């Protein structure tokens, strides 16, 4: 993993000291809330329903054991003993006191972490394929490029006050595990016919009030021009973005209004007119960053493990192996998914004890690394197959052995009205009700792959637009209602969900999901997932079933 150097550390120390002084000035009344709010938001500190919330950035979702242990310490010392992993691979702490915030940032800085640019109209934490560096299907390690963008964009003065927030995701695999089509900029590393490494550049994707899949504005950008091309995109956005209307200020609206070709022409013109050599990453610097991601010393092992296969005699382990263990690029290793979706629990929540266990397991079994998946789950990316049974057993001690990755109970839910000041309705209790309905592992397995994603408001932090079943909480005549969408996906063949019909009340959502699953089980053909069946049959049979029950 990338380690902060002396410059990084000094920069962070300065920032913590600056924020400490700003907090003191706010507490003493030297700063008003209006003056202070922007400053605290630039440090990831929000004021929500019950307390302050600190959003900690986890670049490309990668954590060392020391970092995760520090997050556990902070959760236990300054919060109520848990944190919430988000769909942006950040960690949110929901019970923070303003007076503690500078101390927390100081603790984070000790392990090379911060909360800078986790709010505000700037370039936010950048995400990547959570299997980066471990999957065989990538053409390069996307973390290298994300780290380069992170360093370039942190405190970038020209892009500190964009028309609106700005999110970038990078993948290097044809299987899109980073949802690049629904980002302001999605970057897809690939090789062209000549074998040269480059980025397919997508701009103007996004969810929220007006969802769009990002169109491609450049099919192949040579990797050496990454930063200058990003600069050109951001300059066009800075120049033409709708600062006059917050609902039209995201780049997706600009791209939609100019058209992908028109926007692309603006970017190319800007790019060709700039002194790009001043911006693009020097080879030496790229090599320095790349060195931080050099593969560790993997052992030479047979591709299969007798211990792993023998452990499958236990049906519970066999189920875990089917759903939570993924192929690794190195023979004899595996990527182990850790579900934070035990039925009945809050999706994405992780206790301090669970964090410490995962830190220990990461240190002992996964080359000191833990990853955060945007689907609000965690990953041990480099586990020897021989060790998977021991890891599984250890996970069980803290309730982390739920074998449901990708299944109907692996539900994304934003914090919703239980915590968030912007929400219209609760998301977590809806997720809990659905998960309890399908908690029988055999039932969940029979249903198979089915992504349910729930947002408590139109801002779509719960990614409902890209759920095979999407659920959006709305305020309908003063009551919590939920609009259902079907057919969303963030895969390579991405699609936005279509509205099923009128919103249903909270106590009917689990029934509605049940009805749709019944339709799927009745209609599915050999090998079809829920999404495939929906794409073949369309909305009609699902609509008929839901509204026969709900009304």
């Amino acid at each position, binding site marked *: 993993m990338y380690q902060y150097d002396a410059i990084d550390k000094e920069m962070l120390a300065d920032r913590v000291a600056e924020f400490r002084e700003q907090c003191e000035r706010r507490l003493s*009344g030297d700063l008003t809330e209006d003056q202070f709010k922007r400053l605290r938001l630039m440090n990831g500190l929000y004021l929500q329903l*019950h*307390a302050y919330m600190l959003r900690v950035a986890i670049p490309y979702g990668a954590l060392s054991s020391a970092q995760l242990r520090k997050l556990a310490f902070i959760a236990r010392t300054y919060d109520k003993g848990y944190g919430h992993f988000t769909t942006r691979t950040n960690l949110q702490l929901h019970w923070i006191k303003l007076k503690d915030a500078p101390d927390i940032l100081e603790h984070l800085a000790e392990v090379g972490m911060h909360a800078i640019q986790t709010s505000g109209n700037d370039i936010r934490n950048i995400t990547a394929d959570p299997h980066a560096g471990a999957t065989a299907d990538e053409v390069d390690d996307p973390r290298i490029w994300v780290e380069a963008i992170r360093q370039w964009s942190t405190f970038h003065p020209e892009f500190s006050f964009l028309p609106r927030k700005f999110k970038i995701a990078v993948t290097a695999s044809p299987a899109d595990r980073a949802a690049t089509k629904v980002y302001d900029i999605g970057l897809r590393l690939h090789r062209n016919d000549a074998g040269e490494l480059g980025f397919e550049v997508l701009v103007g994707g996004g969810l929220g009030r007006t969802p769009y899949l990002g169109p491609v504005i450049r099919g192949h950008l040579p990797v050496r021009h990454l930063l200058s091309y990003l600069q050109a995109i951001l300059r066009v956005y800075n120049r033409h973005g709708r600062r006059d209307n917050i609902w039209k200020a995201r780049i997706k609206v600009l791209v939609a209004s100019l058209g992908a070709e028109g926007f692309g022409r603006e970017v190319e013109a800007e790019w060709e007119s700039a002194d790009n050599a001043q911006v693009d990453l020097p080879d030496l610097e790229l090599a320095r960053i790349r060195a931080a991601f050099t593969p560790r010393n993997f052992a030479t092992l047979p591709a299969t493990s007798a211990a792993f296969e023998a452990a499958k005699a236990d049906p519970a382990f066999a189920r875990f192996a089917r759903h939570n263990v993924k192929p690794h690029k190195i023979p004899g290793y595996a990527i182990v998914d850790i579900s934070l979706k035990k039925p009945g629990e809050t999706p994405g929540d992780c206790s301090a004890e669970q964090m410490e266990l995962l830190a220990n397991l990461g240190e002992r079994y996964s080359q000191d690394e833990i990853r955060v998946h945007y689907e609000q789950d965690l990953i041990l990316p480099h586990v020897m197959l021989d060790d998977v049974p021991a890891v599984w057993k250890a996970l069980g001690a803290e309730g982390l052995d739920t074998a449901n990755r990708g299944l109907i109970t692996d539900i994304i839910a934003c914090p919703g009205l239980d915590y968030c000041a912007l929400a219209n309705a*609760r998301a*977590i209790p809806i997720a809990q009700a659905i998960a309890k309905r399908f908690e029988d592992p055999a039932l969940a397995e029979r249903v198979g792959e089915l992504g349910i994603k729930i947002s408590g408001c139109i801002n779509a932090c719960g990614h409902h637009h890209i759920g095979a079943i999407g659920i959006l909480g709305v305020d309908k005549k003063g009551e919590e209602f939920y609009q259902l969408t079907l057919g969303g996906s963030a895969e390579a063949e991405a699609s936005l969900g279509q509205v099923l019909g009128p919103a249903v009340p909270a106590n009917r959502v689990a029934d509605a999901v049940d009805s749709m699953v019944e339709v799927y089980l009745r209609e599915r053909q050999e090998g079809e997932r829920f999404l495939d069946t929906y794409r073949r049959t369309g909305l009609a049979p699902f609509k008929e079933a839901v509204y026969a029950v709900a009304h």
Partner: protein
Amino acid sequence: MKALTGNLLDDGEAVFLGHDGQWAARFADAELFDDEAAALAAEARAKTQITVVVDPYLIDVIPSEHGYAPLSYRERVRALGPTNKPEHGKKTEGGEAIDALLHAHGAARSKGRVELIRRK
């Protein structure tokens, strides 16, 4: 009927202006205003307490089975704590005042809060 609410500056806790003019953690201790002018005057005074409370605003209050409760579901969540964690928030103290909030109906969002969100 109205009550005045906000979040404490130093720890962000949801609080309600009490009968004694102090900020109270429990909704049961909130002063309830019949008179709109008095409520607006209290809100204006609260906005000057910049080292104590953040973004004070008025909320609608309705009779419940065991007393009074905020009309809006959002405000009841603020007064009770998150519904996904029985062990967190003010609901843990129990009693009649908490029951009044738990059994209240009417989930309209309070106007004050809507205006605050719009401003943000």
